[in-house]
């Protein structure tokens, strides 16, 4: 699954490598679910539609062995992509990459990016609010923010997420990332890297009146 994705380049909407693999696994799993569902439904339908007695054969050892072995083979087939994804998600364990501090407030996010710090020469937090008025044609209505989180592309990202008041959740679905923000707790979420572009997310834990109006905007740039 990993190599297939690299060769086929099935990335829609600028997805992450990790999220792309998650989507592939999900599609694969769903096909299996459809097959099982179709098979069971057809059996049930045949019992309803066709007349006949179904109580002749009340014990069949061979049948029981078969319907134990075949599902276990299906599950064995699911082991490989599942474990691969599990280990990929732990692939980046610090050392080099970009450290981003995210603090959730009611009802905005504040970021501290070392990319900005290296330019400004001081550790500055900046707040990111939803833009409600003066939207240009082509902007996204509830996603545009005034100061997005600026990030380096093609570099591992480490999001250290906390909150200053209530529980929020920092979600970037394109990266397959959702990190809860608790007051008094520092959670870390790791992403393997993104390509250049804009990524959006929304607060994913109910946090009051404007919970739906505190989006996350992330811009990935390269340094040249």
């Amino acid at each position, binding site marked *: 699954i990993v190599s297939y994705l690299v060769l086929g380049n099935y990335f829609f909407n600028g997805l992450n490598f990790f999220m792309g693999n998650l989507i592939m696994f999900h599609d694969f799993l769903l096909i299996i679910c459809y097959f099982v569902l179709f098979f069971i439904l057809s059996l049930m339908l045949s019992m309803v539609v066709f007349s006949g007695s179904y109580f002749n054969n009340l014990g069949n050892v061979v049948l029981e062995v078969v319907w134990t072995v075949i599902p276990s083979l299906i599950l064995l087939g699911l082991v490989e992509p599942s474990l691969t994804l599990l280990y990929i998600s732990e*692939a980046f364990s610090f050392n080099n990459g970009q450290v981003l501090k995210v603090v959730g407030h009611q009802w905005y996010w504040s970021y501290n990016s070392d990319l900005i710090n*290296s330019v400004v020469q001081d*550790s500055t937090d900046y707040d990111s609010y939803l833009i409600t008025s003066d939207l240009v044609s082509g902007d996204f209505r509830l996603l545009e923010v005034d100061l997005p989180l600026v990030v380096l592309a093609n570099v591992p990202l480490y999001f250290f997420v*906390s909150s200053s008041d209530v529980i929020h959740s920092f979600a970037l679905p394109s990266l397959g990332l959702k990190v809860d923000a608790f007051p008094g707790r520092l959670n870390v979420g790791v992403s393997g890297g993104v390509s250049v572009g804009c990524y959006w997310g929304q607060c994913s834990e109910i946090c009051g009146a404007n919970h739906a109006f505190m989006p996350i905007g992330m811009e990935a740039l390269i340094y040249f």
Partner: protein
Amino acid sequence: MPLYGHRFFMQHDFEAPVDTASTKLGSTADPITGKLTAPPYDPRFPNMNKTRMCWQNFVDYHRCVNKFGEEHKPCAWFQWVYKKICPNEWHERWQERVDDDAFAGRLK
């Protein structure tokens, strides 16, 4: 002093770049300075909750400074780590308390 503190500044001198031009996956160095950009994996804090890692590095920095003086360079490793990962509100608030002798941690 922490038990494992010496291992960090023996392996990763925060002044020197670790992997400037490495092509290994996940080890791209900071293109601006070419130095170590993220704190290395600390096995004392393996899980997702890094609250204690932030607190421990802050405390270790002050213990190091109290024991060896502010000019002792390895102490700056702990400061680098806590400034990297701690939210500013936290370490600024703790620093105020340290300055007022009101910090709830053993710094001597």
